[in-house]
Structure formats: structure tokens, C-alpha cells
């Protein structure tokens, strides 16, 4: 990562990551030199592009213990999620019309599910517990004989909470329901095994693992069961007919190389990130009171630290720590005034959901940057608490939940 002067310290690795220079090096020849259309079967230009694509496909598949032929390239996880849900609900419309998902899913799953509901499908949205996990009994009870597909994300983008994919996959198998997981945040960071976890469809993305933006994939199981989908994009029949359009060889090569590196370096990188995360969490807790962890330090993915600083508002804290590029909740909602729907679904009070900051620690984060981040956060939290009437009341021993707040004018 090329660090630039006058730019804040990058701590938003869940939103996106810089492309690893090693990945860029691999991609470079595939623009002007090796430019052939991977679908051109009649000459060497096509063949060499096809070979590069297939090598990348293999690296990606290996990261989830899948067969390379099961990987369908898309523009990213958003498209993959759309294809999985819309494609399955349409193809299996004779089998049923019911889909199940979870309240804390990414917007692109939630909104796709809502769209399907508008189209006349039946939708069940399951709640989560205070750690963000879906209850397996709830899940079992939600399945009917009309259920086509269940979509549960691997790792939550705000809190880093991991779902028990293996247990969920087992339930799906028992009930003959397709299991889709949005693994945009999990892929390349934690072990994923489509066989062991019983996953039928998995959405993944390159730019979350130090690959380029604009490329992702959907894993589509071909055996036991053979999963079929109605395509969203029709045309030349590329990608087993599920996603037409000329393949972007350079982006795919980058995706493949990013996956190869992720597999090779997963363990040491995870250990380093967990250590930095714990260090940051402990340092903040030593110096500040009333800091709440959203998610779990042990069960979450390595580089995600989501904290609520009670009695100060998240947006003003972000403004105060402008030397750190962080996000309040997910990148998609931090431009809106809503508090985090993910944290609310986890049963966090509105006040704490308004005060959350997600610190993303990644491949290029240094210990020095963490030290600066801690120092900045401690200083600004103290400054804003000095400004906060709620903090003063808390310090006076007033129970804020007992106050009759005048909030009928709506606010957010």
C-alpha cells in the first residue's frame, strides 16, 4: 500500500482494501500484451487468456475447497448475491416460493429479498442474538416445504460476527433447502470449506482481499445437489450460461493472485491482526470507561473491531478523529442518518447503536498506526464527553433510562 502524506490512517478494511502490489504486478501484462478474449477458441490470443483465467479460477476455488468449475465470475459480491437469490427463486419456482434470510445481512441481500417479496415471494427474516448470531432452532422452524433457499452471511460486515455455517449447512441439507452464504467478509480471512459446511452457493469478492474492485464470483455447486439458476444477464453463454459477458482477464488474474496470497498467508496474517486488535481494544479500555464491544473479540474475524463509546454520538466522533479513516457502521449506511440496523438487530439500544465506530485493521496496518489511533480516540472521546450532557448526568449517577425524553419530534 502506498501511504500518502496528508491522508488519514486507513482503518476501513471492511469497506475495501488497497490492491496488493504483488497482485498489481501479476495483472499488468493482461491489459495491452495478453489481451485476448478468453472465449476466443480459434487462436493463441484467446488460449493464453483462457489459461490465465483458469489458473485464477483454480486459486479462488482452492480457498474454499471447491472445484474450479464451480466458480462463476461476476462483477462483485452484490451481483453474486442478486444472482444467487433471484436466480434460485426463479429457477425453482415450481418447487416453492419461500426464502429465508437474517436481519443483519448486507443491504444487497436484504434489498434483493425485499424485491423478491414485492414480486410475490414469501420472505422470512430471522432475528439474531446479542452477539449477532442466528438461533438454529428459529432457523429450523422457519423452513417450510415451500422453502427454496436460505441465505445467511458468513461474517457480518459491521461487527465481524461469524455465523455457524457448518451447523446451518447441516440443517439445510436435512430439509432439502439450498444454502447460500454471502462470504464477502469471510472469504480469504477465515477457513471456508464448501463441502464441510454444506454450502451450495457462496458470494465472494476480490476487493476485500487486496484484489481489484469490479470482480467477484459466485460459487455454484455442481454435484450433490447440482444447483441451477436463472441468469440475470443473458448473452454469449459464458460461465456455464449463468453469467454472460466477456471475462475481464486482468481483473480475474488479480482476483486469483489475491486469493493465492490470502491462502498462503492466512494464518500468520490472522495472528498478526488479532494481536493488533486485542492491543488496541485493551489500550482503549485502560484509558477510557464505558467502551462497549459490538461483536466478539474471540469469535469475530481478525481485523474487525467495532466499538461503541457511550454518551457520545458516532458521527461527531468520526469528525473528531478525522486523522483516522473509519466508518460508523457500514460504508453503505454511514452517509445516512439512521443508526446501525445491524446493532439494533443485536438488541443494542438506540443510544449505543448511534455511537458505534468500526475500526478495520488490515494487511498494511502497522503497530505505530494503532498507537496513533488509540491516542487520537482517547483524546477525542474525552473531549466530546466533556461536551456531552449525558456523560455529565451519568457521572452524577443519574439513570438515563429513567428520564422522560422528549423525542416526539422524530429526530432520526
Amino acid at each position, binding site marked *: 500500500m502506498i501511504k500518502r502524506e496528508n491522508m488519514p490512517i486507513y482503518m476501513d478494511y471492511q469497506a475495501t482494501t488497497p490492491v496488493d502490489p504483488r497482485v498489481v504486478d501479476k495483472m499488468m501484462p493482461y491489459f495491452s500484451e495478453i489481451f485476448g478474449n478468453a472465449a476466443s477458441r480459434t487462436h493463441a490470443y484467446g488460449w493464453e487468456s483462457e489459461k490465465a483465467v483458469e489458473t485464477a479460477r483454480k486459486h479462488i476455488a482452492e480457498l474454499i475447497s471447491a472445484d474450479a468449475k464451480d466458480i462463476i465470475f461476476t462483477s462483485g459480491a452484490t451481483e453474486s448475491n442478486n444472482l444467487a437469490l433471484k436466480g434460485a427463486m426463479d429457477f425453482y419456482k415450481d418447487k416453492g416460493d419461500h426464502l429465508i434470510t437474517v436481519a443483519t445481512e448486507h443491504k444487497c441481500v436484504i434489498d434483493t429479498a425485499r424485491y423478491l417479496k414485492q414480486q410475490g415471494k414469501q420472505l422470512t427474516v430471522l432475528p439474531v442474538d446479542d452477539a449477532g448470531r442466528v438461533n438454529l432452532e428459529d432457523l429450523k422452524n422457519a423452513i417450510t416445504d415451500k422453502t427454496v433457499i436460505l441465505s445467511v452471511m458468513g461474517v457480518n460486515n459491521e461487527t465481524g460476527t461469524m455465523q455457524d455455517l457448518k451447523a446451518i449447512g447441516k440443517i439445510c441439507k436435512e430439509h432439502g433447502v439450498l444454502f447460500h452464504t454471502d462470504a464477502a467478509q469471510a472469504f480469504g480471512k477465515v477457513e471456508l470449506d464448501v463441502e464441510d459446511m454444506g454450502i451450495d452457493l457462496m458470494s465472494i469478492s476480490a476487493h476485500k482481499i487486496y484484489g481489484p474492485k469490479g470482480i467477484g464470483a459466485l460459487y455454484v455447486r455442481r454435484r450433490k445437489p447440482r444447483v441451477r439458476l436463472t441468469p440475470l444477464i443473458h448473452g454469449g453463454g459464458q460461465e456455464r450460461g449463468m453469467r454472460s459477458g466477456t471475462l475481464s482477464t486482468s481483473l480475474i488474474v488479480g482476483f486469483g493472485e489475491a486469493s493465492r496470497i490470502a491462502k498462503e498467508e492466512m494464518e500468520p496474517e490472522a495472528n498478526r491482526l488479532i494481536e493488533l486488535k486485542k492491543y488496541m481494544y485493551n489500550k482503549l479500555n485502560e484509558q477510557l470507561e464505558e467502551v462497549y464491544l459490538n461483536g466478539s473479540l474471540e469469535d469475530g474475524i481478525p481485523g474487525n473491531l467495532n466499538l461503541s463509546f457511550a454518551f457520545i*454520538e458516532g*458521527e461527531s466522533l468520526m469528525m473528531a478523529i478525522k486523522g483516522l479513516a473509519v466508518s460508523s457502521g457500514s460504508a453503505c449506511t454511514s452517509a445516512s442518518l439512521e443508526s446501525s440496523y445491524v446493532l439494533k438487530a443485536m438488541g443494542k439500544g438506540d443510544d449505543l447503536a448511534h455511537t458505534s465506530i468500526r475500526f478495520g485493521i488490515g494487511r498494511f496496518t502497522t503497530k505505530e498506526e494503532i498507537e496513533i489511533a488509540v491516542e487520537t480516540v482517547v483524546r477525542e472521546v474525552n473531549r466530546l464527553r466533556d*461536551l*456531552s*450532557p449525558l456523560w455529565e448526568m451519568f457521572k452524577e449517577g443519574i439513570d438515563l433510562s429513567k428520564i422522560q425524553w422528549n*423525542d416526539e419530534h422524530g429526530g432520526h
Partner: protein
Amino acid sequence: MAYSDKVIDHYENPRNVGTLDKDNENVGTGLVGAPACGDVMRLQIQVQDNKIVDAKFKTFGCGSAIASSSLATEMLKGKSLDEAKDIKNTQIVEELALPPVKIHCSVLAEEAIKSAIEDYKEKQGK
């Protein structure tokens, strides 16, 4: 979100932060908003001979909310109660160049002013 320079100035150097003795009969306190909405403002005025001689605030909220209440305290100082009552949220919007999504911050500041004046008057009435 891009803030105006004036919002940033008030946010980084808030004026009149603090607490007046709410039990003092010359002090009026307004506490408006709710934690669940993401904004709580407490605005206090100290009155002498019908004139606001001091104003203090503390705010839980976004940068615009902090700036709105900081500006409100500046506007209040030196004003008579009648003049203060006439302060409109639109003056705050204009002065701070608040974007549409932040207008509620100025509304809250106006409410805080009115609520503080009311509290003072109630105390005096007793």
C-alpha cells in the same frame, strides 16, 4: 459529509461549554432531544434584570448539533428574554450553512432556547 467552515470552527472550538447551577433561581435550563434520536442538547441561561448575562451548553450529537448549540449560546448572550424568544432556527441554518439533512439540529437548538426561557420564567413565577 462535508461541513461548512463555520460548523467545523464551532465544532472544534465550541463556545460557552459548561454547566450553570440549575438550582440557582436566575438560571433557566432547557434539555431537549433524546439519546435514541442521536441528539441531546442542554442549554442554560443566566438572567439578570431581564437580560441574559451568561449562556452555557453541553450537547450529545453530531457536529452540526454541537455547532448549532454553540452558536445559540453566542446569540443569546446580551439579549433580553424577549429578543431571545424570537431567535429562529433559520438564523442558525443560515449562519452555519447547514445542509437540509441537518436542519433538525437547528430546530433542536431553537427548542432548547425556548425551553430554557420557559424554565427560567417558571422559576421566577414561583
